[in-house]
C-alpha cells in the first residue's frame, strides 16, 4: 500500500464548557489521504465536515490527536496544500492575475516567473483573456475558476475543496465538475490527490474514487467505501443509483448507539446523556412534505422524492427528520411513509392543523415540553430566553444553539404553546385563541 500524504490519527475536536463538560464536535477520527485519488467527504450540513477539512490542512488544530504531513506534524507552513473555497474568497480589489500571483508573492517568487506561471495556469483553467478583469466583473463560475487557478498555481500535493460548487447554479456546477475531472484524468494538474467536502450525494459519487460519509453530533465516520465506476459516470446506471441509495440509507438510518469512547483521563466527567436535536425544518415545509406523501399514496423513496422536488438531500432531510420526530411519518430503508397522525395533519384545515401540531410537539419534542411546563408553573407565565440558551449551551456548539433556538421558536409559536416577545427577549404563555371560530362571511370588496 502506498504511503499516505496526510494521515490523521485519532483527531478530535471539542469545546470545554466552564462547568467542565465538553461539547464534542468531532469524535476521534482516523483518516488517510493517499496519492492518486479523489476523496469525497460527505455529510449533512453543520456536521463538522468543514472543521475536519481545516484540521487536515493544518489551518486549525485538533483538540487531541494529530495530523501528519509525510510523517511530520503538519503546520500551515510545511503543508503543500491549497483550498478552493465555497465563497471563492477572492480579493475583490485585485485583478484576476494579481489574485493568482498573490500566493507566489508570499513565497518570494520573482516578478517575471510569477507572471509566467500565473498566465500558464489561467490558460489551463480556461481564463485566458480575463487576466486584468476584477472578480466582480465575472460570473460565479468564472470566479471559481480563478479560485482553482489560485489553488493550482502553488502546485499543491493535495488540493482541498470546501463545497466548491454549491454556490453555483446547477448547469455551471455540472460544467465545472466535468472540467475538473478532465484536468485530473489528463494529468494536467500538478496535484496528486484531491479532497472534496460536499453535502451533495450525487456530486460525491460522480467525482470520487473514495467516499467517506460523516455522521452528525458529533461528527464521526459512518461509512468509507470505494467507487469503482469508470469515468465518465452515468447517473442513470444501476450501480450509480444503487450507491446513491446506499448513502441515503446511511444518512437517514436512525443513529446506532455508538459506544461512548473510553474515558481518557480520570478527571474527565462522564459524557452527558444526549439532548434531543431538532432538525431545522419549518412548519410549512413539514406540511408540504406530508401533503405530497398523501398524494402519492402515503409512501415514497427518498431519492426519488429529492429528484422530483429538485432538492438536495441537505434541504430535504431535515424536513423528513422533523416529520419523523413529530410522529407524522416513519423512515425505513430509504423510504418515507406517512403515519395516521400525519394523514390527519395533511387533511386538516388551518386551525385544526395548529391543534394537531401542538399535540404532536408536546408529546414528542423535549424542549417544547420543558417550555410549556415551565410557563405553566411560573406565576407570571413568562420566562427569559436566556434560560433556554443556558440549557442548550450545555449540549450544542454556539452556532447550533442559535439554530436550535430558532427552530424551537418557529415550532412553538406555530403550535401556540407560547409567544415570543422580541423586545424583552421573553417567552410568554400564549393565550388560548385556537378555539374554532364561527365561519366568517367573506369580506365585502
Amino acid at each position, binding site marked *: 500500500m502506498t504511503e499516505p500524504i496526510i494521515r490523521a490519527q485519532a483527531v478530535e475536536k471539542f469545546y470545554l464548557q466552564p462547568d467542565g463538560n465538553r461539547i464534542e464536535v468531532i469524535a476521534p477520527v482516523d483518516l488517510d489521504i493517499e496519492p492518486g485519488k479523489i476523496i469525497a467527504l460527505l455529510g449533512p450540513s453543520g456536521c463538522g465536515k468543514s472543521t475536519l477539512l481545516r484540521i487536515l490542512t493544518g489551518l486549525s488544530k485538533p483538540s487531541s490527536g494529530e495530523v501528519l504531513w509525510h510523517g511530520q506534524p503538519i503546520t500551515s507552513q510545511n503543508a503543500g*496544500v491549497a483550498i478552493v*473555497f465555497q465563497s471563492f*474568497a477572492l480579493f475583490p480589489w485585485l485583478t484576476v492575475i494579481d489574485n493568482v500571483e*498573490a500566493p507566489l*508573492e*508570499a513565497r*518570494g517568487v520573482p516578478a517575471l516567473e510569477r507572471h509566467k506561471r500565473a498566465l500558464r495556469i489561467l490558460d489551463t483553467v480556461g481564463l485566458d483573456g480575463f487576466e486584468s478583469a476584477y472578480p466582480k466583473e465575472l460570473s460565479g463560475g468564472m470566479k471559481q475558476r480563478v479560485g482553482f487557478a*489560485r489553488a493550482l498555481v502553488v502546485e499543491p500535493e493535495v488540493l482541498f475543496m470546501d463545497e466548491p460548487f454549491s454556490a453555483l447554479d446547477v448547469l455551471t456546477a455540472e460544467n465545472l465538475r466535468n472540467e475538473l475531472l478532465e484536468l485530473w484524468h489528463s494529468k494536467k494538474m500538478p496535484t496528486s490527490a484531491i479532497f472534496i467536502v460536499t453535502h451533495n450525494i450525487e456530486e460525491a459519487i460522480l467525482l470520487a474514487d473514495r467516499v467517506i460519509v460523516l455522521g452528525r453530533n458529533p461528527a464521526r465516520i459512518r461509512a468509507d467505501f470505494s467507487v469503482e465506476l469508470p469515468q465518465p459516470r452515468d447517473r442513470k446506471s444501476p450501480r450509480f443509483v444503487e450507491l446513491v441509495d446506499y448513502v441515503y440509507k446511511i444518512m437517514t438510518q436512525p443513529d446506532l448507539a455508538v459506544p461512548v469512547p473510553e474515558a481518557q483521563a480520570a478527571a474527565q466527567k462522564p459524557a452527558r446523556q444526549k439532548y434531543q436535536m431538532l432538525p431545522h425544518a419549518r412548519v410549512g415545509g413539514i406540511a408540504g412534505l406530508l401533503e405530497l406523501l398523501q398524494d402519492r399514496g402515503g409512501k415514497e423513496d427518498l431519492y426519488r422524492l429529492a429528484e422530483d422536488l429538485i432538492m438536495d438531500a441537505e434541504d430535504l432531510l431535515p424536513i423528513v427528520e422533523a416529520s419523523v420526530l413529530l410522529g407524522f411519518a416513519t423512515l425505513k430503508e430509504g423510504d418515507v411513509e406517512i403515519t395516521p397522525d400525519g394523514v390527519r395533519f395533511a387533511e386538516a384545515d388551518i386551525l385544526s392543523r395548529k391543534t394537531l401540531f401542538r399535540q404532536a410537539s408536546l408529546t414528542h419534542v423535549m424542549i417544547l415540553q420543558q417550555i410549556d411546563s415551565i410557563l405553566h408553573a411560573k406565576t407570571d407565565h413568562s420566562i427569559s430566553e436566556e434560560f433556554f440558551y443556558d440549557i442548550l449551551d450545555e449540549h450544542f456548539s454556539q452556532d447550533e444553539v442559535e439554530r436550535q433556538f430558532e427552530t424551537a421558536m418557529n415550532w412553538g409559536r406555530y403550535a401556540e404553546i407560547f409567544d415570543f416577545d422580541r423586545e424583552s427577549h421573553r417567552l410568554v404563555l400564549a393565550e388560548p385563541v385556537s378555539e374554532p371560530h364561527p365561519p366568517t362571511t367573506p369580506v365585502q370588496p
Partner: protein
Amino acid sequence: MLPRPSAASLPDLVMFAAGLALFYGIVEIGRNWLGPYRPQVEISRSLSALPVYAGYSLLRIAFAYVLSLIFAIVYGYIAAYRPRAERLMIPLLDVLQSIPVLSFLPGVMLAMAALFPGRQLGVELGAVLLIFTGQVWNMAFSFYASLKSIPREMREAATIYRFNWWQRFLQIELPFATIGLVWNSMMSVAGAWFFLMACEQFSDFRLPGLGSYLQSAADNGDTRSILLGIATMIIVIVVMDQLLWRPVIAWAEKFKFEQVESSSAPTSWVLDFLRGSRGVAYLRKRAVRPLREQLIHFFAHQNEARVQSESESAAALWLWRVLGMAALAAIGYAVVRVVMILTGLSRSEFHEIGIGLGATFLRVNASLVLGALWTIPAGVAIGFNPRLARIAQPLAQIAASVPATALFPVVLLILIRLGGGLGLGSIVLLLLGTQWYILFNVIAGAIAIPTDLKEAASVFGLRGWERWQKLILPGIFPFLVTGLITASGGAWNASIVAEYFHFKGQTYSTTGVGALISAATDAKNFDLLLAGTIALAAVVVTTNRLLWRRLYRLAETRFKLES
C-alpha cells in the same frame, strides 16, 4: 528613460508646480513654528494675509490627521488581534468617543505651553493634540470593526497561501478597511475644523489662522473682513472636497466588498486627471513597482526565517505584559492624583459645578429641541420632494461645512448689537452646531421611507397628524436618533466655547459649566478646571449610556426598515 520634455503634458506641469508650492509652504511654516512664543499674536486683517492663515489652519489639520491615521491603525490592529487587550480597549474607545474634547482645551493648552516655554511649537502642538483627540476615536473604531469583519474564508485563504504580515496588511486588511476609513476620515476632518477654530481663538493662546482672523474681524466690527474670512473658509472646504475627498472616494470604490458591479460609481475629475498623468505613470513604474518587489522579497525571506525560530513569541508576550502593567500603573497614578485634587475642593466650588452642569444641560437640550422643531418638518419636506432636495441639499451641505466655532465671534457681534444676553444667545450658538446633523439625518430618513409604505398610507387615507404618527415619525426615527446623538455630542463640545467670551476687551459669560471651565483657566485655578472637566465628561458619558444608547438600540431593533 525620462519622457521627452515636449511630451510633458499639462497634468505633469501642474503636479510639478504643486510640489514646489508644497515645499515652500513647509519651509515657511517650519520657520514660524520654531520661532519664539508670542503671547499676543497680531492678526493682520489684510486680504493678502488670508491665504497664509488658511495655509496654517490647513497644515494643523493635516498634521493632526496623519497622527490620527497612524494611531487609529495601530490601536485598531492591537484591539482586533489581542483578545485580552480588546476587552479593555473597546469600552475605553466608547468612553473616549463620547467625552467632549473641547473641555480639555484649556488644560491641554496650559500644559503644552508650559512644556515648550518660549517656543510657538508648544501652542501649535497643543492645538494639534486637541484636534487629534477630537478625530481619532471613530477612525480607530472603524479600522477595528473592519478588521473584525474580514470573512473567515478570506483569512483562511491568506493563511493557506502563506501570506506574511505585510501581505496581509496590504492586500487584505488595509483594502478591507479603506472605505470605512475614508468616510470616517471625512467626518473626522469636518469635526477637526470645529475644534481648530476654537483652538485658534482660545483666549491667551491664539494662533494665526482662519479662526483668529474671523475673531479679530468680528472684534473690530469689520464686516468686509468677516465676509472675506467666511468666503475663504468655504473656498478651502470646497477645494479640499474636490481635490482630496472626491478623488479618494472614487479611488476607494475598488475596495468595495461586493460580488457584483454597482451601477453608479462615484467619479472624480481629479482622479481621472491623475490617472492620465504620465508623470504619475512613470513614478509608478520606476519607483513604486520596484519598491513593492523589494518588499515582497524582503518579507518572504523574513517569513521563512521566522518559521525556523518560533521562540520569539515568548519575548513578545513579556513585552506586552510589561507595557500593559506600565499603562495600568500610569492610569492608577492619575486616578489617585485626581481623587486627591477633588477632595481638596471646597463645598461652594462643588455647588458651583452642580449649578453650572444643570444650566448647560438645560441649554444643550433646549438647543436640541429647537433644532429638531424646525429641522424635522423641513427635512421631511425636502426628503419627500426630490426636486426640492436637489436644490436644498448642496446648499445645506455648504452651510453645514462652515464650522460653527468659526461663526461664533460673528454671531456674538450680532447678538451684542441686538442687545441680547449670552444666556439665551449661547443657545443660538449651540444651535449653529447642532441643527445640521439633525437636518441631514432627517432628510436621509425621509428619503429612505419606501414608496410602497407611502402609497399604503395614502390608500388607507392617513392624513395630517395620523400620517406623521403612523408613517413619518416611525420611518425617520432611527435617522433622527443618530442625528440627535451626534448633535448632542456637538452641543456639549460647543458649550465650552459658547458660554464665555473675551470680546472687545470685555468678558461676556453666562452660568454654565463651560463658562466655569474657561473662567477657571483664566484665573489659573487648576483644581477647579480639572473638577469641572471631569464632571462634564461624566455627565456626558452618563447621558449617553442612559438615554442615547437605549434610544439607539430601540431604533436598531424596532424601527429598522428591513427588506
